[in-house]
């Protein structure tokens, strides 16, 4: 019987183009079946509810403790990406989070356009799972980088004036 470890984390995302979606579907479709046209994909893919597409194991360093995770595709389509966020798109992100909860993940990172749920300050779904967009980690790494640069140059940060370019953006 196949056993698979419960995932610690879930990464939520989506594909940027119909050609990427076609590549995934064609990889899953038996070679005996003719490939679907883009028109056919457009009929089917928007209806697929968010779900685990692959399972992955990562380690912070060679020989480090392996951490199990899942990639959940929300199946937000490129056409939906091109428009303003709609209730349907937000529902897909929420359903993706529910899929992560069903799998038992403790933390989910909202990648690409799915981060709109947190950035738009839309109320988070019920449940105890931690959500991150990756922006906090990016900001923390930038701060560390500045601290390290100052240290290497022998300058005291407390005596410096700092200019933040892009401070009004979500990472800033």
């Amino acid at each position: 019987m196949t056993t698979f470890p419960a995932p610690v984390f879930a990464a939520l995302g989506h594909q940027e183009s119909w050609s990427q979606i076609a590549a995934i579907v064609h990889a899953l479709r038996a070679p005996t079946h003719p490939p679907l046209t883009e028109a056919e994909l457009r009929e089917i893919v928007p209806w697929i509810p968010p779900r685990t597409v692959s399972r992955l194991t990562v380690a912070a360093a060679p020989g480090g403790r392996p951490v199990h995770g899942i990639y959940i595709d929300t199946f937000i389509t490129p056409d939906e990406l091109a428009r303003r966020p709609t209730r349907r798109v937000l529902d897909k992100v929420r359903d993706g989070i529910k899929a992560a909860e069903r799998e038992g993940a403790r933390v989910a990172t909202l990648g690409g356009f799915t981060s709109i749920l947190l950035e738009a300050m839309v109320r988070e779904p019920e449940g105890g799972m931690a959500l991150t967009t990756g922006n906090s980690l990016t900001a923390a790494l930038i701060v560390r980088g500045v601290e390290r640069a100052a240290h290497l140059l022998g300058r005291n940060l407390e005596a410096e004036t700092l200019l933040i370019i892009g401070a009004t953006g979500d990472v800033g």
Partner: protein
Amino acid sequence: MADACTDSWQMSALQRGVFADILSQAITGELIGMANYAAMVRLYRDPENQQDVLTRATTELGHSERFSQAARELGVNPIVNLEAPYWLRIRTSFLRHADANDVIACLVIQEVMLESFAFSMYHAVADVADDRLATVFRSVGDEEEGHGDHAIEELRIALAADRDGLERKIETLHDDVMTTLAEMLAAKDSVEHCGLCHGECVKGSLQHVGLDRASLRGLALNRYLRTLDRIGVRGERSLAWVARLPA
């Protein structure tokens, strides 16, 4: 989907014809459901479960009668054909598993696959039909949803006992039954005539009542995948199955 037919008196002959063909599918599907549940009586040893599936068979018969009554009120004559090619194929698959005393396979076909198809189609029709017809489709759709919970629980238990075994079984059933259901709403038919439409295939006329083939198929697919999720089937597996469905 647009242009709902909210008043049966203002409906054109073309629109009545579309609803007649939809009712033909609904009545035939319910009678197939009735026969399927009736065939399950012999799969159970205990009277409680026997009575349960018999009750469901009666409910399905009741649904077909309500659809027939709705057809009479609409002034159309639906075609009832249990030998219609797609439905016959599904019925034959079901009976093969019933004859093998495979309760789980029967539950998957009837409660997961056929229920997904019926629930989504009935609610889509209810959204565009006139008040009287909408009420019939919506109430039958809600009842279809209600009686599936017990089966889902049974399938969850079966999955917990043998994940690989149940997922393999559902995959086999998917390739057989779900492929047939998908063909019913596919752009191209694998049979010459479905045996239920009065003239040309209704799929080309659905837009006259505010429906469209692709959305009906998408809604059924969505419902089916969500039901598999509730059972606990791995998302990557069910995704691979639907990727193989005919376009």
